[in-house]
């Protein structure tokens, strides 16, 4: 089992990284062109009004005071108020609103990837150098070579435009009032909790294409990792021992091979989840889903800096947490690491 000390050490190591992350975001925003006060006030505002806003944003303070304020606020998840996109709404509340949308998309995408990628990888390894193996490998390579912003439009074209099976964009049909059933913000769960069966189906249909796009990519990565990891494990002595004592080959592969081969795969799944959050920027743009990926792109475009810093920090924070989770899972699966 894992020791509390191991987890504590990992948590402490996060502090400098997160401090660095926050400092980097602070510098990026201070280097970005454009005057936030002028952006808020508008081009025709009086000089005096602009000064007032600068004062209220603390832009006249020395840079280190601004930096410390920023760190103190960021540590409490306070990122100020949006100045353009959602005028005067707190960035934290916007993020709470939008984050579940992105997470729902990434989780379903990842589930598709895991449930297809792991069996494909195992089959590919067990049947090494057969036609099945070659097809899977080339398919996986193609999967990571096709950009999401091309596979997405292709799926829309085929399944939404030509066949008409799925909607082209959005999260749920516009006839439903989503706000009325908001609990977790995850539509597929909220609709079920409220017993709104039709809404549930609509949400699933909207989710199908974007989750598949993400799933294809993640399946490709996972099956590659699973294959090479399984190939390594299959050659180990303990596998031969298990076979020698008369155990069937299928049981050996699943019982002894699987658990050991999963260790590196879990790392890939974890890291993959982080980049899925980044990839959400693209998926959400293609499918016109209003999650935090789409929000970030819009905020950068119009120069809504509080939203940019809040979103980027949240993404980095989640990414770091996921990586920590991966490290801990890793040490559970392979006790030798915890030393």
């Amino acid at each position, binding site marked *: 089992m894992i020791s509390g000390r191991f987890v504590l050490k990992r948590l402490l190591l996060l502090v400098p990284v997160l401090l660095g992350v926050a400092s980097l975001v602070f510098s990026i925003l201070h280097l970005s062109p454009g005057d936030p006060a002028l952006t808020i006030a508008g081009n025709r505002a009086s000089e005096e009004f602009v000064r007032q806003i600068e004062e209220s944003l603390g832009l006249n303070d020395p840079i280190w005071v601004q930096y410390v304020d920023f760190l103190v606020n960021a540590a409490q998840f306070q990122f100020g108020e949006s100045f353009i996109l959602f005028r005067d709404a707190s960035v934290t509340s916007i993020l709470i609103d939008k984050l579940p949308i992105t997470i729902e998309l990434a989780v379903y995408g990842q589930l598709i990837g895991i449930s297809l990628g792991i069996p494909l990888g195992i089959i590919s390894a067990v049947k090494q150098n057969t036609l099945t193996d070659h097809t899977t490998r080339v398919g996986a*390579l193609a999967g990571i070579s096709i*950009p999401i*912003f091309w596979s997405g439009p*292709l799926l829309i074209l085929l399944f939404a435009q030509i066949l008409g099976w799925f909607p082209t964009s959005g999260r749920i049909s516009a006839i439903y009032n989503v706000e009325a059933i908001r609990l977790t913000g995850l539509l597929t769960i909220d609709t079920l909790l409220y017993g709104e069966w039709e809404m549930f189906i609509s949400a699933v249909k909207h989710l199908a294409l974007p989750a598949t796009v993400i799933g294809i990519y993640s399946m490709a990565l996972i099956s590659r990792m699973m294959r090479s990891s399984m*190939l390594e494990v299959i050659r180990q002595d303990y596998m031969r021992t298990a076979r020698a004592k008369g155990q069937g080959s299928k049981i050996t592969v699943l019982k002894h091979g699987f658990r050991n081969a999963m260790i590196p795969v879990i790392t890939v799944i974890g890291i993959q989840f982080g980049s899925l959050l980044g990839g959400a920027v693209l998926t959400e743009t293609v499918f016109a889903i209003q999650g935090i990926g789409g929000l970030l792109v819009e905020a950068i475009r119009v120069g809504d800096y509080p939203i940019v810093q809040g979103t*980027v920090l949240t993404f980095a924070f989640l990414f770091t947490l996921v990586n920590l989770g991966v490290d801990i899972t890793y040490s559970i699966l392979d006790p030798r690491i915890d030393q």
Partner: protein
Amino acid sequence: MSTETTTETSDELTQRGLIDRFRASPFVSSLLSNRLALAGIGIILAMLVVALYARFFIDLETITQSQLGTNPNREPPSAAYPFGTDGQARSILPRVAYGAWYALLYGTATVAFSTVLGVGLGILAAYYGDVADNVIMRTMDVLLAFPSLLLALALVAIFPDGLGLWRAVIALTLVYTPRFARVVRGAALTVLENEYVDATVALGAPDPRVLVRHVLPNCLAPITVQSTLNFGLAIIDIAALSFLGFGAAAGTPSWGLMLSNGVNLGLLTGDWWWSFFPGAALAVTVLGFNLLGDGMRDALDPRMREAVD
């Protein structure tokens, strides 16, 4: 293999012929016997030919400016316009061809810059250790704490629009550098344990000589694999930034921008060819680099080589 002997017997080498030596290396022979890797090389060479042809024989003005009135607008693929025409009546085929030039040019720049930076930092961190190691690698950790495309997006916003696709190159260089630094630091630490390094130091060789003549050449293998695999990523990420509107200036025949226009303006009206062809060119090019990179990785890993036999 020490590089000292290589220089001393360089005359002999020239006689034996570089090509023979190249072929005799287990890495190259294993790579050339891998059909998938060969297919990758073929794709890359074909794209290179297209890119060079486009750069020298296609007039950028004509394919950038609107051709409304001259050509039919939003024409499906036909004999006259094999890839069809877009919303400004520009023929899509020469634009896709020119896009190959942009993809390879900016992709190469990104990979080259991040390789040089990452290799430099990685070797310095490994060689000097202690404070240098900590400062360099902790900075890399911070950069690695962001999902890559996100960091690139945030960075791109700093640079003026006028830089066009070079904005994307600079941002992605910073994003990729830590990966190279990590790989190279690891490789360099292993090389530094060898006795010939101690011997060179004991003979009084200055640091730069040790690093450039002895450590660097022995780290080349992992660097090359990482570069090749990153090529595909760089081409996708540059296109992704353009797709999101941060990169190529309006009208530029870059694949990402063409895809974005095709998806936003053409997809819902059924003009599929507008986004299909630039996307296909992008996917095929990236596949080429991934096939080659994969083959190289297998060729470098003796266990994998065994598996192929």
